[in-house]
């Protein structure tokens, strides 16, 4: 058996089902790899070795009992630490939740357990998923396996770095403004944001409720599609969950891998062609576009005039919702409590707790959001941003009357050096320039590697209409078949 950590989820599942490797061996190989490299990568905030071993043993027992196994049974997975896992620490990357062990599993965690996936542990993220580099994690940043002096993207940098460092074949992320796709792009991995409501939010520590979407991260498109089909589906505990059946994303990925895209129309967003993106990123993106054209796709330039307002609208809507969602962290019921000396007033204890428990980016957004929702400013900020959101949705709807999917670079720049953008929030926000419109619209989008720039991975984004998640998998798989997967060198 070759190195189990280098195999795809599809290969691992086949090996386990065929008896060539046990789920326990697969889990141990990944736990060993984590022990070997994670002090340098810091992809994990918590490794649940015991839980992983128990889950793997159960899969092995089921297999030896002759029970049918699902397509990902026994495959290890890392879960972004903003997703509630019963009895396992869930910090959201924040000091304010240090030590909190949820008494319940998120729906997507329940689904993964039921599918026989083996949860290795919880991956690092920017605090409450606010950031594009993991540098806002209260527990220190993760490092990009392509270059350990550079960021692995964010907020789900831990999930992406774990894949690129072969610590896990699959991870789960959440995407509010690009937190699955941008880390995928800068680590040379695949990250998919499903249609909003396609995957349940029940058990996701809420950042921005109308945008948060959990989704799969993997090293191949087919692996991502397989995990997607486990995560997705209607959940009665999430009122924004959609009741429609999950599109056949696995079938679409396999069809795309055959390399035939004849008849598929790709929309090139005029507003995204060039400005703001590094030349090397644009060059790799165009190479990807050429590759797709060779497979039979047609490229049509489309205009989405309101995309330019997406970033400012997002930075009103997301902070507004977060200012309300994060109000519950007050030291009264769980998590950190500071200043409770029996003398101080309750308000003071709440205030000291929040002062000590929240990091700078979280505070910035809570304050922005509180301001934007306040009486007299609501219409000018939150209300106006919601109108922009409607206009952006109309841009998408109009564009999808002309084309099947929209394409763009995933993020304007390759992995940047740690510390290079933390002093200027706006420079950090620009990382999500191309990913945010999709979140405001609610449709699905995927990032797939399309080449290198200065030796670092570049991501290619495919955006599809809501509920047409299968379409983006088909195009992404076709691109992957043309340019191949990217493999970083040894960790340095």
């Amino acid at each position, binding site marked *: 058996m070759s190195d189990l950590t280098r195999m795809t989820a599809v290969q691992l599942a086949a090996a386990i089902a065929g008896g060539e490797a046990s789920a326990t061996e697969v889990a141990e190989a990944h736990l060993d790899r984590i022990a070997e490299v994670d002090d340098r990568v810091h992809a994990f905030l918590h490794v649940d070795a015991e839980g992983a071993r128990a889950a793997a043993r159960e899969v092995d027992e089921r297999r030896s009992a002759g029970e049918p196994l699902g397509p990902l049974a026994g495959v290890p997975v890392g879960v972004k630490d903003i997703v509630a896992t019963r009895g396992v620490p869930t910090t959201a990357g924040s000091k304010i*939740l240090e030590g909190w062990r949820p008494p319940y599993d998120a729906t997507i965690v329940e689904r993964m357990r039921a599918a026989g996936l083996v949860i290795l542990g919880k991956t690092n993220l920017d605090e409450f998923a606010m950031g594009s580099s993991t540098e806002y994690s209260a527990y220190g940043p993760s490092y990009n396996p392509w270059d350990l002096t550079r960021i692995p993207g964010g907020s789900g940098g831990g999930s992406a770095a774990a894949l690129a460092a072969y610590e896990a074949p699959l991870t789960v992320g959440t995407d509010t403004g690009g937190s699955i796709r941008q880390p995928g792009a800068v680590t040379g991995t695949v990250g998919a944001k499903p249609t909003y409501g396609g995957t349940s939010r029940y058990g996701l520590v809420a950042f921005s409720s109308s945008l948060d979407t959990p989704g799969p991260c993997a090293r191949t498109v087919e692996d991502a599609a397989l995990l997607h089909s486990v995560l997705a589906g209607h959940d009665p505990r999430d*009122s924004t969950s959609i009741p429609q059946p999950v599109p056949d994303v696995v079938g679409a990925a396999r069809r795309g891998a055959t390399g035939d895209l004849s008849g598929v129309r790709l929309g090139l967003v005029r507003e995204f062609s060039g400005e703001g993106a590094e030349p090397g990123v644009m060059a790799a993106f165009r190479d990807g576009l050429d590759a797709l054209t060779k497979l039979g796709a047609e490229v049509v330039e489309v205009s989405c005039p309101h995309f330019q307002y997406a970033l400012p609208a997002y930075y009103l809507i997301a902070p507004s919702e977060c200012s309300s969602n994060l109000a519950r962290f007050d030291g009264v019921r769980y998590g950190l409590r500071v200043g409770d000396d029996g003398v101080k007033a309750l308000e003071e204890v709440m205030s000291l707790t929040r002062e000590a428990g929240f990091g700078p980016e979280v505070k910035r957004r809570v304050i922005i959001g509180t301001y934007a929702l306040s009486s007299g400013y609501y219409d000018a900020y939150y209300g106006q941003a919601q109108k922009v959101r409607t206009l952006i949705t109309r841009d998408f709807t109009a564009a999808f009357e002309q084309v099947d999917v929209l394409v763009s670079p995933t993020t304007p720049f390759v992995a940047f050096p740690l510390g290079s953008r933390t002093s200027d929030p706006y420079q950090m926000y620009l990382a999500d320039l191309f990913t945010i419109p999709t979140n405001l619209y609610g449709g699905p989008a995927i990032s797939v590697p399309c080449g290198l720039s200065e030796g670092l991975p570049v991501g290619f984004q495919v955006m599809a209409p809501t509920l047409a998640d299968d379409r983006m998998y088909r195009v992404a798989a076709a691109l992957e078949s043309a340019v191949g997967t990217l493999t970083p060198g040894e960790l340095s």
Partner: protein
Amino acid sequence: MTVTLPPYEDVLARYEPVIGLETHVELGTRTKMFCGCPIDFGGQPNTRICPVCLGLPGSLPVANRAAIEATIRIGLALNCTIAPWSRFARKNYFYPDMPKNYQISQYDEPLCVDGWLDVEVEGSLVRVEIERVHLEEDTGKTQHVGGATGRIHGATESLVDYNRAGIPLVEIVTKPVPGTGALAPIVARAYVTELRDVIRSLGVSDVRMEQGSLRCDVNTSLSRPGEEWGTRTETKNVNSLRSVERAVRTEMIRQASVLDAGGKIKQETRHFSEETGDTRPGRSKETATDYRYFPEPDLAPLAPDLEWVASLKAALPELPRVHRKRLQADWGLSDLDMQSVLNAGAVELIEETVAAGASPEGARKWWLGELARRANESGIELVEVGATPAQVAELQRLVDEGKLNDKLARAVLEGVIAGEGSPTEIMTARGLGVVSDTGALTAAVDEAIAANPDVAAKIREGKVAAAGALIGAVMKTTRGQADAKTVRDLIIARLS
């Protein structure tokens, strides 16, 4: 400082009141508003909770359809328009009994708007207009322990019970009610009474003010005739119908004394005291609270199906006021008699007693007589007096059958109230039944004749009216248990 309060009549000579009422009703749904936790009054603290009603990170609300239905039915019964499209909103403020530090409520898009409720006050109808009826979640309860008063000052610890958190709460807000003059306190009480009866008739809440399933905030303002409406105060902690009336009255008097002295009314929340009957200012807020309302992104908008609403409307029960008119006719009562039944809060009790087999006269006699007297003496509501309609009906049946006379029946009732069992059981156990067995009575009659030879002689001479003295003597020896008519017959038979 002693403030001289003007007499109520003086207040009305100079000022006109405007009142308004905000009523919260806890719905009696099986489960909470946004989760599956059961709803029951009481229970050990923090036993009816789950990740959702505790607001744990990651949990999400799912709206309770039964609560939405109940709210729509309340709206329909109050003649409201049911909004074709409505939304939940978040009301953001920090308070430890609120698990998420925001309350899921409704803001500018409530479920029901623009209705009215007609209430009867001193024989005429007053129309109270309803501004809105909306649905929200209740908060938990904070308990301050370690201090002498149970209040936050001096307490060593504050404990929070989240059993109540997430119970569906319907808020019913009236428009300002002007022009009621001296009747303002009575109108306020009549409105809350009528609202309570309407909601009870819908079967969606037990509307018990003493248990907090119906809570009322009373807004009061005064203005001089012809001038703009004055600044209003909001009085909370009004926990009984009687208190509603008292709160409006005392607040009118208090405001008048402030205005008389040239002062200004502060817009504030005040707390009513059941003990003293006056209102005290609540904790003053230096700045107005900004609740930062915005549409709840975790819940889909509500768009009630028109056919569903129409079917709910068609199935509404008879309104209490209409129902009462019908009862009055059935029972053959004058307006005055019906009014005293209403004032005693005895309509349903009499109705149930009649349903259990008693005649309307019999039922009314007990509830407005002996039982009302006992309730008054103990300062409790008639419903709390300790006798059920079924028991009263049984008691009356025993009287009708001649097994009890009035005096014995009152003794049996005492046993019923003491919880000794059913009237029949008590009658047997205490040996209170009427004695009409002639064998047992003959001895007593003979004894009475022997003891009163003069009286006996008169009766022998045909002066039958004199028998009363002998009957009294027999009753005395039988401790009132003899049937008077039987005794009389026996005496006359013996002496003729």
